[in-house]
């Protein structure tokens, strides 16, 4: 009897009260079972016995959290009392990166830029010739095609001996192969893999750039790596083909030479530039002609005021100014060497 009476008292001492007093109420987010205590620490207590104080504090706060959970609607499922948690308020950061969107294929990029929208096609379409519904693809479509194309017209300009059926099959397999190539190229592009260059594939579809590359590679493909090949005027070497050009490296570096040698080479280049045979410069010739005429006309006016006859003859003698103009050629002396 004694034991029964004293037990609740002992229990009361053993278990702490579920009542906890706080100056500021805690913030709860029951969805994530989170309670946040914004009250100040009792600094005096904290310094004296840190572990005990923190243990005490966390117990109190946990008690408050559990009190809150008990306020929620509960139900009993197979001997267990279950509280229904509300939707969480705290937003947790995600652990992993957001997956990158799949890179667009070349066609998707193009259609996006051009604003081409894919149209939905009907799965079945009525075939007037066969008088039945034919699917868009699949074995039934192939059957229908075969039925329809039991005979093929030979185009007017085609070779009559050519097998049109064979040609159709060939064209189909080429289309399939092209599609496959494009598919693989898209995959390689999305994974950032470098696809080796095929070189020049087809002269019918190649662009001017491809042809330039072909010329560059072909010129280097001699026994002497194109050293003795002649250059066309204004010919440019294709760029980015060094890996398929024989004897070419990606970085061409001039070999280091002594200063004297370099100077001599530079002087030789200067000489070739200066000794370029000047082509007939019409602008210059016209300008000189105008200039001469002006001098002439001014000297014609002059005799009215200046009546020295001797001076005029001197002028006439001096007029053809050979060898006094600016020459672009480096040679001194008159005219070119004649043999």
């Amino acid at each position, binding site marked *: 009897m004694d034991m029964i009476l004293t037990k609740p008292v002992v229990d009361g001492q053993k278990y702490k009260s579920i009542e906890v007093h706080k100056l500021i109420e805690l913030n709860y987010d029951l969805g994530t079972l989170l309670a946040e205590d914004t009250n100040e620490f009792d600094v005096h207590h904290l310094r004296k016995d840190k572990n005990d104080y923190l243990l005490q504090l966390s117990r109190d706060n946990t008690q408050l959290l559990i009190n809150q959970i008990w306020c929620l609607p509960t139900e009993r499922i197979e001997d267990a009392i279950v509280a229904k948690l509300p939707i969480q308020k705290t937003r947790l950061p995600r652990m992993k990166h957001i997956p990158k969107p799949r890179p667009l294929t070349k066609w998707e990029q193009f259609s996006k830029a051009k604003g081409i929208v894919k149209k939905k096609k009907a799965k079945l379409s009525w075939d007037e010739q066969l008088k039945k519904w034919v699917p868009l693809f699949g074995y039934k479509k192939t059957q229908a095609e075969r039925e329809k194309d039991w005979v093929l017209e030979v185009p007017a300009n085609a070779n009559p001996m050519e097998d049109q059926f064979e040609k159709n099959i060939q064209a189909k397999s080429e289309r399939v192969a092209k599609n496959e190539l494009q598919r693989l190229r898209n995959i390689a592009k999305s994974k950032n893999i470098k696809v080796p260059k095929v070189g020049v594939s087809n002269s019918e579809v190649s662009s001017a750039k491809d042809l330039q590359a072909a010329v560059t590679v072909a010129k280097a493909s001699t026994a002497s790596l194109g050293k003795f090949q002649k250059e066309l005027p204004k010919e440019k070497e294709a760029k980015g083909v060094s890996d398929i050009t024989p004897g070419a490296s990606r970085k061409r570096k001039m070999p*280091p030479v002594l200063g004297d040698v370099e100077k001599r080479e*530079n002087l030789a280049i*200067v000489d070739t530039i*200066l000794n370029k045979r000047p082509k007939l410069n019409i602008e*210059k010739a016209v300008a000189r002609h105008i200039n001469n005429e*002006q001098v002439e006309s001014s000297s014609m006016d002059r005799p009215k005021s200046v009546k020295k006859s001797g001076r005029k003859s001197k002028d006439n003698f001096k007029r053809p100014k050979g060898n006094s103009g600016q020459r672009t050629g480096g040679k001194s002396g008159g005219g070119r060497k004649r043999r």
Partner: protein
Amino acid sequence: MKRLSEERTKILFEKLAKFIGPNIKLLIERPDGLYCFREQKDRVYYVSEKILKWANNIPSDHLISVGTCFGKFTKSNKFRLHVTALNYLAPYAQSKIWLKPPAEQQFLYGNHVSKTGLGRISENTEKYQGVVVYSMSDLPLGFGAAARSTAECKHAEPLSTVCFHQADIGEYIRSEEDLL
């Protein structure tokens, strides 16, 4: 710092020949030691061999400039002279243009030279030849290309362009960061 390829050397000298003609040889053959042209990031520098040897100790991506920058190669492989080359072009220039004082400022702001601003022009200047532009007090201001030959200049209208602007010393302030 690397040597200019033969093709680029040719392009560079052809451009210089427009301004100084056969005097290019004087730039290469100098009594005071060896001088050479070097290329870094498409820019061409005129350096003495002595400084170049010191510069070789510095990794190329740390090197901003060595010697005098003459200009740069464009993406289409043409050469464009910078004002910094003026010190070497001015003493050897073959054809010159002198500007009247009011036209000086216009030119230094990057405008072409009109006939009204033309003070004097050297004889036998060809059309589209490279010319060095001087002030009337013989101070080199920049360079450009002659838009008209000397004879044509006489009959040109007053507002017509005589010299196309290419570079002027105002660029030292206007486009400081592009110059290097």
